[in-house]
């Protein structure tokens, strides 16, 4: 809302400069965004940010009321006194009828005959233009001027274009249309409230007038409408018709039911002054739902309970009356308060307390910390999330945070069988029109973004959410997503370079899972379509699949413009959190030495390390501590179809030093089992 400082001062005679108002009025809740000279020299323009609850501030008079209250100055009244002719308004032949009194609580019509439509004087058009309203002609300009002055929307009809000079406020009939002032023909729905004459709709109630009945230079006789329309009806219609006007903006926020007559008379006063003519005596004032102001009890005890301090009685009364509230004291520290018609937002005691608090000054309310009566209970997964972050950051993974909405084309390859994408109804763009079904695609995008900017060695983790539909049910899951590409370690004088591979991610997944109270994971080849078939696996704990790990398929690498091999993993965080963190139990330390034995094995190419470990563990040697693969090679002296694997086995007893004989017996059993079960041969 743009207001002119000089115009405000006509009602609020304060000394404060516009700049001072900009600094001081926000402290009572009137936010002045900017102060600058109007381009056309009409004065100093102040831009006011009005919240939806305060339609009374959408006018100079309303803003002036707050200023007058803030600086304890009397607000100058607006008391229009247009000269009326001796002819009663009824003799014009005009008639008003409200068919839907629930949607139109009041309709005031005045008739002015013999006006001379022409351009407005400079002072008027300049004020309008400064406030952002185009000057049209003296009649229309006056209605807009009064809108800016008092805040109440009015509308002038050319009386002679109204069929039978009748005004009927009713809802639209099926199939009805209207061409509005902006020249657009609009189809109406039965919930749209219209102003009709005897034949057709002539205006959209509270939104915009019709083209066929507008004021023109031929207009001689004017019917001026000043009414009150239902906020919700106005807002719905304005939304459905895609029309937002100064009038609808105000009616949907709730106008003052006591204002229509005053606003109409103010218009008439200015018509007579600027366009001549005669105002017929009286008004057609149909007022089926008179304003019933709420009577609100206000107690000092409640002020104290909410604000934490009492306000002096005189201050309570001074603030409320400066803002137009009427009241009586019913007890020493209690009042019955009646809200003015322009403050429909004030309906309860709490609303009055806010009025008092803001004019008393929030800054004068003391500050202290509340007492704490209960301990803090952390959500169950707090510790688990901290453990995840610590584990992954220690391994060099950077945290990513990505957008939830993505493009359908990038999302679709990451859907699992039976899942559908969740669509956004009103997306900002096609690129952001579905919710991501997995965190994987977000990290692929993060990798591509960086690689395309020269950052080629990357590891990321993201703790986020994924959204899918399955059989019509929407699921919002928590997921942990990992990604790696480029080098795990770059070459330096100290170290050789080491590229990322599937085992980089397998290691990270194992490290994460180890923190949780879950069986040791197994990795089983799977058919997840986003991964490259030779390098993809499901992550299982027991029989339950908790996630996937794999290399991004070449097709998707191309689609996401990622020009490096990349490995990704995703784990179901809800399952991890449900399992909880692993509890640690002390294991006694052995006082006896551990013994290490290496076995250099020659194996068939199809024999896995897992099979060797399982075979050795199946021997149930109580003293077995660990089995680890140390070195592996093919070719050279190794025959085709076989490979060589060096494994390191550690034995230790908690009770005694193991003898040479015992170690030899363990070794023999291991070699024998590997030979017999897996066809292994011991080299050298």
């Amino acid at each position: 809302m743009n207001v002119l400082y000089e115009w405000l001062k006509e009602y609020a005679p304060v000394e404060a400069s516009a700049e001072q108002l900009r600094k001081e009025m926000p402290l009572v809740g009137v936010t002045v965004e900017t102060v600058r000279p109007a381009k056309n020299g009409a004065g100093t323009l102040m831009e006011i940010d009005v919240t939806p609850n305060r339609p009374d501030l959408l006018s100079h008079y309303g803003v002036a009321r707050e200023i007058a209250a803030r600086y304890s100055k009397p607000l100058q009244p607006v008391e229009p006194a247009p000269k009326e002719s001796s002819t009663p308004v009824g003799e014009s032949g005009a008639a008003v009828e409200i068919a839907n009194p629930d949607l139109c609580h009041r309709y005031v019509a005045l008739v002015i005959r013999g006006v001379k439509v022409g351009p407005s004087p400079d002072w008027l058009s300049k004020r309008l233009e400064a406030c952002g309203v185009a000057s049209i002609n003296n009649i229309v300009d006056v209605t807009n001027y009064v809108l800016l002055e008092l805040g109440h929307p009015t509308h002038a009809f050319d009386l002679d274009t109204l069929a039978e000079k009748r005004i009927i406020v009713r809802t639209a009939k099926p199939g009805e249309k209207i061409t509005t002032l902006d020249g657009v023909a609009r189809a109406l729905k039965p919930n749209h409230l219209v102003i009709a004459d005897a034949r057709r709709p002539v205006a959209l109630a509270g939104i915009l007038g019709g083209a066929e009945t507008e004021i023109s230079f031929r207009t001689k006789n004017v019917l001026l409408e000043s009414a009150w329309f239902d906020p919700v009806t106005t807002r719905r219609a304005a939304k459905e018709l895609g029309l937002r006007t100064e009038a609808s903006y105000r009616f949907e926020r709730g106008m003052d039911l006591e204002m229509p007559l005053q606003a109409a008379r103010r218009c008439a006063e200015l018509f007579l002054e600027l366009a001549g003519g005669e105002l017929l005596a009286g008004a057609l004032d149909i007022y089926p739902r008179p304003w019933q102001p709420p009577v609100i009890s206000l107690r000092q005890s409640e002020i104290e309970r909410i604000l934490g301090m009492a306000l002096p009685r005189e201050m309570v009364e001074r603030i409320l009356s400066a803002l137009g509230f009427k009241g009586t004291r019913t007890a020493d520290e209690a009042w019955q308060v009646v809200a003015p018609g322009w403050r429909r937002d004030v309906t309860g005691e709490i609303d009055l307390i806010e009025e008092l608090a803001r004019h008393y000054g929030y800054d004068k309310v003391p500050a202290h910390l509340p007492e704490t009566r209960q301990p803090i209970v952390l959500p169950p997964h707090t510790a688990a999330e901290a453990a995840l972050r610590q584990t992954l950051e220690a391994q060099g993974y950077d945290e990513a945070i990505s957008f939830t909405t993505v493009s359908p084309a990038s999302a679709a390859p990451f859907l699992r069988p039976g899942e559908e994408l969740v669509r956004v109804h009103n997306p900002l763009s096609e690129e952001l029109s579905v919710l991501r079904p997995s965190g994987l695609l977000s990290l692929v995008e993060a990798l591509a973004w960086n690689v395309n900017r020269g950052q080629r060695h990357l590891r990321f983790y993201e703790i986020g959410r994924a959204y899918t539909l399955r059989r019509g049910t929407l699921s919002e899951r928590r997921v942990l997503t990992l990604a790696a590409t480029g080098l795990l370690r770059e070459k330096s004088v100290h170290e050789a370079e080491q590229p990322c591979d599937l085992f980089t991610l397998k290691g990270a997944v194992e490290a994460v899972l180890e923190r949780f109270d879950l069986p040791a994971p197994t990795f089983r080849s799977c058919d997840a379509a986003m991964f490259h078939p030779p390098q993809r696996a499901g992550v299982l704990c027991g029989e339950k699949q908790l996630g996937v790990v794999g290399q991004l398929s070449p097709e998707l690498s191309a689609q996401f413009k990622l020009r490096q091999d990349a490995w990704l993993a995703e784990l179901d965080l809800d399952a991890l959190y449900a399992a909880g963190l692993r509890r640690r139990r002390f294991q006694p330390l052995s006082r006896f030495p551990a013994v290490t034995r290496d076995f250099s094995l020659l194996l068939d190419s199809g024999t896995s390390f897992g099979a060797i470990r399982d075979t050795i563990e199946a021997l149930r040697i109580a003293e077995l501590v660990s089995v680890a693969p140390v070195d592996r090679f093919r070719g050279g002296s190794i025959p085709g179809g076989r490979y060589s694997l060096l494994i390191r086995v550690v034995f230790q007893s908690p009770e005694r030093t193991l003898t040479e004989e015992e170690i030899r017996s363990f070794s023999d059993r291991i070699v024998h089992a590997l030979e017999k079960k897996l066809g292994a041969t011991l080299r050298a």
Partner: protein
Amino acid sequence: MTSVADKTTKTLEQLNVRSSESVASLFAELKSSFDAEAARAMTPDAWKELRDRWLGRKRGLLTHAKDNWLLSASTSLKPEAGKQLNALRAHVEAALEERRKQLEAAGVAAEALDLTLPGLQHRAGFRHILTQTLQEVCDILARIGFATVEGPEVETDYYNFEALNIPEFHPARDLWDTLYLDHTAKALPDDLRGARSDPNSLLLLRTHTSPMQVRVMEKQPPPIRIVVPGKVYRHDNPDASHSFMFHQVEGLAVDRDITFCDLKGVFDFFLREFFGPRTRTRFVPSYFPFTEPSADIHASCHVCGGDGCRVCKMTGWIEMCGAGMVHPAVFDYVGYDAAEVSGFAFGMGLDRFAMLKYGIDDIQLFFQNDTRFLHQFRR
């Protein structure tokens, strides 16, 4: 004149040495000759040469001295020659060992060890600056009794708007441009949808984390003191200060006798802890449908200290947070008695907090995951 080294090839007799005193001075001569040579042996090669010349098993000077001055000495001179030779050998060996150590120490420093090479580091991953900020905010508030809870990002109209006193077709809805989903509340599991959500209303991406106020109060009686961090969504076109996705921290305290003074106290404490001890706070009247009285909370500009600068648009103050006393209508929705309990709520934009604290000028940087950005903020 014959050098003392040459003399070792001759016997005592040939050298005409006949007394013990003469033997001693001959050895003294040899010792000073060694000392002079040792003083010049400053490289490992020279050291080796020195060692071989004096201690060489076959042709070393001391071997010669042993053969010619001791073994062939007369019985009367033997004891003195033996004593002198042992002393000299001990001296030579000790001096060589000493010099070896010196040369080794110097050699490592000169050739092997380059202390200017970078140390070997294992780079830990970086936590996102928004997560760090979120944790800082939650940690500060935890110290005054606020527990962190999380909620769903897909919400129903009821929790996001209606139960927060924002009915359909209320003009206040214009304050939140909402992203709706193509699915109705029927798609949500019953426990998430709640009993009061209209199953036929469109689901939406929460526009604030305030719905958790309602969800928490529905489930537990007062006292309540929670913070709810998380992602929120608005139908906003992206630019340097707007993102359709950003992060909010919502707070709620409900108890008997919670007042506006408490809200002010919490923010005085919180903003000072977060932005520094010289931060001043200011409460300015505002409007939110779910609080009354409502306030915008401003902090004195941490860049200019309140004098006015570009960051604070010359006002000296920066808008930080919306807050207020919980509106009685919200208590009605969750079945609390508004005459018995009172409370305050607040909501702040985490992204904005991080931007202000670290001088970040583009909100989009948070979501590009560019490592040049992420790696600037070591925890």
